[in-house]
Each structure stands twice: as structure tokens, then as C-alpha cells.
């Protein structure tokens, strides 16, 4: 049976009707991944043993008539920065090559508890530092729509795995756009939740006050289902919020588009934006208008400060977060260093990728005495300013609509020698992270080279429910999310 074009919901029906077994589902995805992945290289680790074990357990449950988890029948790929107990977790860095965690991240565990099956761990930029997967300490993932192109990043492996139908959904993280930008470049949907909605526990930290775990899927319905399970207070993450998680899946039609005010921030449609991207994103806005929404021109004047603020604050946090990778308790380390300082320097020098070192250096500099106030303190103040602009904007509009990326996917290698150019790939996504609000990326068309284009709906704090409802309805009157690459 060809499961490729079936949603998780449809697959689950087949499983519950006993037309197919979990082992058959697992084998189908394993076979497809083994065939397709060598072309796109989405996975660092394919978890063949685990997925079969899990599938057998599910079939056993079905046989015994035991209660099944909400995700029985679903196949999931996991960005390799989520710790998975007993399964190698590299964060796509050589520092963690061979590292087998003793514990699992909270979100991953919640999904496993709902009987999800894991197909593998996906490639990313090391520790999620990047926008294309080209910084990975292993290899570059290719865009399933055109294997000469980047999939975006950092969660490029997860986006590519979903785009190539190697799983039903995939976990990612979004620190400055790392879910929304690859969603856009790979033509899939992805949610960056409100900061504090999804637990960060057990995910290797990039910038702790920005990191937002989230999920990629073919459509919003599956995203809503997974988020309903992952979201909520986690006693292991003090920054998660004790705010009730709505039944996202039951409220997908809740928001009335008629009369809904959609803000179009002018700063997101000017400057270096690709004309085709601009056109397709504005078309998406018009689709909502056709359904009765009111488009409102708005301004988020500090947008151009976003990248600067972001690239001061995140390396600062990174410089401390990376300190634990010292080769003492886990991970790779050198032999024969004459003293402890040499041991640190040789271990970190040998196994950390160039972008990792670059960000540690920038952050260490920004936090140094004499520079701290000029950089960190000032950036923290501008951060508040940007956040307040979003809060103000949401007094006048219900939701904001904007592009995710100024361009569609670019050629592998085109920006690797120009880190600043690479940093600008985040220009339309970082402010959302700086503010901490949620953003949902959705596909909205293709350019003349058949490369996907996406847009994002941005909501106020903890308004995922609204975004899911609007995104789902958008996917009822458009079919961009149904398009598949030729592989």
C-alpha cells in the first residue's frame, strides 16, 4: 500500500481498521527513507531498530485491545538537538559525535508516551547555529524540491524529511527562524510556538531566552495535534508557563475570518525582498481578504534593529551555553594534552565547527567587561522595544502576516563564505523570536523555478489556537500544502 500521500489521520484510520499494521507502516517509511534519504541527506541517524521495536509494541497493544496513544501510527523525525535516551544525539557537531544520552527531552518523551514511532534524527546546523544546514559538522541536507539548493535551516533536515514524505511530522527548534524559514524553503508547514509554551528541557541549548521547540508537518491539522500534546508546563523548565493548553484540534474552525484584521507590516515587504516572494505572500493575504478579512497596513519600526539585537544577545547566551562541551564528562575529547587548559583548547579547537567558534567568540566579546553595557545591556533594551511594538500592533490587528524569508531556497555554497549574508536570511523571522510571540509558517506558492514560497502568520502571546485555526482554514481554500516534490 502506498502511504506517501496519506496524512497521519488517514494512516491512523487504516491502523485502527486493522487494514495495516504498525510494523507495515514502519517498514514502509524505513524503505522509503533508505531509498530517498541518500539523495537529500536529511538524517544523521536512522533509527531502524527503535522504529520496529515501537511498531511491534503498538501492534501488540492492538492485539491485546489495549488503549492506544494519540499518535499510534504516526512516524516522526527528530532534529538531532533533542536528546533521545539510548539514541545517538550529535547536535550535528563533531563535539557530540557518538554521544548517547542518558535521558530524553521532555517533548520527545511526551510524544513517545503517545505511541509515536521515531524514524531518525535529522541534520541541522551544529547546535542549530545557521540557516541552511551547511554549517553541520556532518554534511549538508539538500532541498527535496531541487537538490542543488539548501533546505534552509537550522532545522533543514526536519523540513526536508517532511517535504520528502519520510515521516508524518518532524520536531524542530526555532531560535531566529529555524522552523519557519526551512518550512518556507521546503514547502511545508511549521509552528514556532510562544516562548515558554513548549519545554526546552533536554534540547541542547542555543540561546536559552530565544529557543522555541516546534513541529513541521504537511498540514496544520497534524501540527495542532502534536502541539496539543507537547505544550504546557514542564517542572524541568522554569521558563514554561502554567497556562492551559487549548484543544487546538477541536477549535480549528473557531476563528471567523470575516471581519478579521490582518496586519501587513511595511518593513517586511520592502528592501531586499525577492519580487516573486512578495507577490506570493501578498496573494496569500488576498486569499484571506476574499474570505472577508480586512487587510491593514501597519508598521513595526524597529524591525531593522532585529538582526543586530539578535546577533548580540544570542552569541552572548551561546558563549555560556557552549562552555559545558569541555570534553570532561561526555562527548569527544583529545588525548595527551599536557594540562587542563590545553585539553580544553585542543578539544574545543578540534571538534567544534567554525560557526560554533565564531559565535562563542562574538558572545565572549560582547559580554566582556568594558563592552557589556555597550552591547548586551543596550541590545536587551532594544529587545524590550521590539517586543512592545508587537504588543502595540496587536491592539489594532488580530494577526500579522509576513514572509518567512526574503528569498526562496538558494544554491548550496552561495553564502557559506559570507556569514553576514547568511545572518540576513533570518531578517523576517528574528523579531518574532526577539519578542517571543508565536508564528505559523505556511506554503503559499512557487517561484518560476518551482521552488516553494511560504509566509507566516504571527499572533500575540499564547495565541497558537488562533494561528492554527486560520492556517487550517487557509489550507481548506488553497492546496499549496498538498504539492509534492519529484524525487
Amino acid at each position, binding site marked *: 500500500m502506498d502511504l506517501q500521500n496519506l496524512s497521519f489521520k488517514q494512516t491512523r484510520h487504516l491502523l485502527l481498521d486493522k487494514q495495516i499494521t504498525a510494523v507495515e507502516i514502519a517498514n514502509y517509511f524505513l524503505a522509503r527513507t533508505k531509498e530517498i534519504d541518500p539523495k537529500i541527506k536529511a538524517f544523521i541517524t536512522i533509527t531502524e531498530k527503535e522504529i520496529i521495536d515501537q511498531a511491534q509494541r503498538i501492534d501488540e497493544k492492538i492485539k491485546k485491545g489495549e488503549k492506544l496513544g494519540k499518535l499510534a501510527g504516526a512516524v516522526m523525525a527528530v532534529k538531532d*538537538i*533533542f*536528546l533521545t535516551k539510548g539514541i545517538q*544525539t550529535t*547536535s550535528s557537531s563533531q563535539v*557530540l559525535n557518538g*554521544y548517547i*544520552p*542518558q*535521558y530524553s*527531552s521532555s517533548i520527545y518523551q511526551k510524544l513517545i508516551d503517545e505511541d509515536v514511532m521515531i524514524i531518525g534524527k535529522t541534520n541541522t546546523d551544529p547546535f542549530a547555529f545557521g540557516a541552511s544546514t551547511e554549517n553541520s559538522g556532518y554534511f549538508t541536507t539538500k532541498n527535496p524540491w531541487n537538490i542543488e539548493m539548501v533546505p534552509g535551516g537550522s532545522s533543514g533536515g526536519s523540513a526536508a524529511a517532511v517535504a520528502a514524505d519520510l515521516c508524518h511530522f518532524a520536531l524542530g527548534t526555532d531560535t531566529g527562524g529555524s522552523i519557519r524559514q526551512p518550512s518556507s524553503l521546503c514547502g511545508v508547514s511549521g509552528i514556532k510556538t510562544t516562548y515558554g509554551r513548549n519545554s*526546552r*528541557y*533536554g*534540547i*541542547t*541549548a542555543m*540561546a*536559552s*531566552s530565544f529557543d522555541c521547540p516546534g513541529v513541521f508537518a504537511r498540514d496544520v491539522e497534524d501540527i495542532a495535534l502534536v502541539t496539543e500534546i507537547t505544550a504546557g508546563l514542564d*517542572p*524541568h*523548565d*522554569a*521558563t514554561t508557563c502554567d497556562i492551559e493548553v487549548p484543544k487546538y484540534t477541536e477549535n480549528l474552525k473557531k476563528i471567523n475570518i470575516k471581519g478579521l484584521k490582518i496586519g501587513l507590516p511595511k518593513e517586511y515587504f520592502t528592501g531586499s525582498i525577492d519580487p516573486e516572494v512578495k507577490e506570493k505572500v501578498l496573494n496569500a493575504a488576498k486569499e484571506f481578504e476574499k474570505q472577508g478579512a480586512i487587510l491593514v497596513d501597519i508598521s513595526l519600526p524597529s524591525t531593522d534593529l532585529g538582526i543586530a539585537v539578535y546577533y548580540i544577545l544570542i552569541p*552572548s*547566551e551561546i*558563549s*555560556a551555553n*557552549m*562552555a*559545558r*562541551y*569541555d570534553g*570532561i*564528562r*561526555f562527548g569527544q575529547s583529545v588525548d595527551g594534552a599536557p594540562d*587542563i*587548559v590545553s585539553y*580544553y583548547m585542543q578539544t574545543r579547537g578540534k571538534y567544534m565547527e567554525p560557526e560554533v567558534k565564531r559565535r562563542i567568540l562574538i558572545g*565572549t566579546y560582547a*559580554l*566582556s*567587561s568594558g563592552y*557589556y553595557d555597550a552591547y*548586551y545591556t543596550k541590545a536587551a533594551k532594544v529587545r524590550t522595544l521590539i517586543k512592545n511594538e508587537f504588543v502595540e500592533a496587536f491592539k489594532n490587528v488580530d494577526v500579522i502576516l509576513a514572509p518567512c524569508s526574503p528569498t526562496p531556497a538558494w544554491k548550496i555554497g552561495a553564502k557559506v563564505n559570507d556569514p553576514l549574508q547568511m545572518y540576513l536570511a533570518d531578517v523576517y523571522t528574528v523579531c518574532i523570536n526577539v519578542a517571543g510571540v508565536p508564528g505559523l509558517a505556511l506554503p503559499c506558492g512557487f517561484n518560476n523555478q518551482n521552488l516553494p514560497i511560504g509566509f507566516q502568520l504571527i499572533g500575540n502571546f499564547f495565541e497558537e489556537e488562533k494561528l492554527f485555526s486560520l492556517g487550517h482554514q487557509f489550507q481548506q481554500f488553497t492546496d499549496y500544502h498538498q504539492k509534492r516534490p519529484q524525487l
Partner: protein
Amino acid sequence: MKITPIIGLEVHVELKTKSKMFCNCSAEHFHVEPNTHTCPVCLGLPGALPVPNITACEWCVKLGLALGCTPNETSFFERKNYFYPDLAKGYQLTQYEKPFVINGKVKVGDQEVRINRAHMEEDTGKSVHISEYGQDLTLIDYNRCGVPLVEIVSEPDITSATMAKDYLLKMQQIIRYLGISDADIEKGSMRCEPTVNLKIEDNGEVFYTPLAEIKNVASLTGVQNAIEFEIKRQTEEFEKTREVKNSKNKTTRGWNAEKAQTFLQREKEGSADYRYFPEPDIPHMEFTPAQIEEIRISIPELPDQKIEKYKSVYSLNDYDSSVIATDQNFADIYETVVTPQNRNDKIKEFAKFVANLFLGAIKTHLNETGEELNQSKINPEYFLNLFDSVQKSEISSSAAKQVIVESYQTGTNPVEIAKDKGLIQVSDTGALEKMAQEVITANPKAVEDYKKNPMSIGFLIGQLMRLSKGSANPQMAKEILEKILNGN
């Protein structure tokens, strides 16, 4: 040349909470199998996040309030960045800009030491250097990593080694009263780092010597000796070099207890850059006025308050008051015996009577056995009985001391013990007169002596006491003997 030492103390206190500061591991680490009280959080494993231990934070505030500090409206943790193998995360969580509490003061003798701040932080692991198989190895035990520490920073108001010792004793007392730590310097649950320099007045000029911070002092006498050594060393150094303090010449010195010397560990302390910044993994913390009030109410009566009470209500002297208040258990038990309602009119005599027994016979007994005073062995009623008997001259003060220890050990009423041992004084005039006659008859020589010198009556009294097997009331015995001998 006039020399005034300027001493500030940083005191680290390990809180005895059940769990560590940022994870659920047991905070117990003394004599525990290495690396058994660890988890992803305190091992600094990838992805692990700290969740603050609220009890520890409340205890820090509690200590601050007990030291007269003001709580900050908002506090937050910061990361102090440096590399060391026993610092699992590569940074220590501490408080820098906004500690929980600031600006307090402590009375030390009749002086005051201002407290700059008390803040919350986490302990590091322990590195053990060994030689084995012909190799020098360093082993790391992370059991201590993440144990809650409160750091109390004083202003440099301490002017002598003795005052530093008294300050530490006072700190220890308060901490133990609050029940938040054993504050045991020898076991490392209380550690202190003095920073010392000197103000030197010479020929109308004033000089300040370079600051020296002294580390690794592991005992109270060590602190005192190290400071004394440092005062002497800095004086000599100044006489040689006349170097004065500047922003770059602060040094760190270690204390070698065997040689009784401090030695240079690190120069130019001013250049260390820990790149503090707010810990993003923990939201800012706020204690509401109601929460602060709740913590304030939970603070027991502290030694200073007790001493004041003993002096004003019971008229105990300074010495007795402060010795009783030194140990909370001791003071509390004393107060179960002596309450303001006891023997209304004679409360001061009673308080003094009990204080003498507690600080005399009972304390001596405790010192001999190494035990702590045990509430269940103290019956307040017995002390009242004993006091009444002494007041009525039935039992002498020295007999009281004797019987109270036995009573403490056996649980028997001390008056009963006195009866059993024949320690009840005979104050019956008839019986005493009979014994006096007997003594006079048996000792004609002594009677002759008395006639010549009335001061020699002591011998006859002694004989009478012996005859009564010590039970005669000596005052009455003297009076009756005199009456008979003087023939009236």
C-alpha cells in the same frame, strides 16, 4: 606609625535543604559514595535546565532578614563564567546585580559590622588529585555540585583578628538558630574568605596597603591566625616597599595552616573577567510583601534578643546571658524551666539559681559526656522544688549542684535524691543543741581555744557537721554553738 586593620569577610554557608539548588538530587555530600547524588542538571549534561529550589531561596531571604537586610523587590540569577573541571556547566549560577537581600548589620560585642548583601548561589564539585600507576590523576566528584550556598558579604568594618572571629561566631550562632545550616567550618559547611589591608597613619600621612584576599582557611583559629599573620606581613611589606593599594594590585593568598603562613596564589585579581549576565533559564524572582512577612514571622527569637531578655527580665549578668544564648537548644531548654510567670516575686533569684545549675553542674556534666542538653531529661517542676528547698535552707547550694546532675541522669526528683543521700539540712534547734553539747563535751581543748580566740569556732562547727554527717545547717550550727559557749 598608627596601624588600623581593615577586614571584610565573605562567608559561604551551605544550606541543609533536602535537595540541591537547581535539581532534585539529595544535597547530602559529606562521606557519600562519589557521583551518586547526581543527575543531568548538576552534571551539566546537554539540554539540562536549572529549576530553583524555592526553600533555599526563602532561607536566603530568612537569613538576610535575621541580619537586618532589606529584600530586593526583584532578584535574578546570573551566570559567572569560568572553566574548571568541577564546574560542570562552565558557569556558576550566582547573584550579582540583584541579590535576594542587601544592607544589613550585625552586632559584634559593642561594635557593628555592616552587611553588604546575602546572595544565593550553587556549590561546585570537588577535585581530588591522586597519584596512581605512576600517573598524576584528577578525579572529580559532582555530589557537591549544585548544593545551595548563601554568600554573606560584610563591609570592611572589622578591625582585628579577634573581632573577625567574634563576627564568625555570631554568624554561626544566627545561622544555627535559623536551622538552615550546620555552619560547621571544619566540615566545610561554613567557609570564609577574609580580605585584609591596613590603614597606616605615618607622620600625618595616611596610606592604605594593597588588598589581600585569603583563601582555604578551614578553621576558626585558622581565620584568626591568618589575619594576624597578614597584618604583620603587610606591615613589614609596607615598611619595605611603601606600596599602596590601587585597582590592579589586589592579590589572592592561600593559608598554610601547618606553616602558619599565607602565601601568594594569584596576582592581579582585578583582571579576572567572569562575564556575568542574567541567567536566561530562570525567570526573575519576586517575593511579595506578604511572602516576606511570612518568612519574617518564621524567624525564631535570635541570640541578641534572648540576651536582652535575660538581662532585662531576669537580671542575669552579661556573661551568663550570652553563654546561655550561645546555643539555641540550651537557651530554649533554659526557657522551659525559667518562664516569667515562675515564682513571681522571686523570679530573678530563680532565674539566677537555674542559670548557675545550667552553666555549672549540668554544663560540666555535658562536657564530660559530650552530649547535648536533652529536653526530655529536664523537668521544670524539679527545678522549682529544688529552688524552694534551697530557699528554705533545707538543701545547701552545693548539695543542689550535686543532686541536679543525678536527677538529670536518672529522672528522679532532686529533693528525693537529697533526702536519700541525707543531704537535707538539719535546722531543728533541739537536735542541733543536743549535738552541740556533745561536741563541746568531747573537745575541751577547742573550747579553751574559743575562749581565747572566738575566731577559732570553725573547728567546733566542723565537728558538729561531721557528727551530723553533713546534714546540719552550718549557719544555725554556728549560732547555737556560740549561744552555749557564751553561756547565754
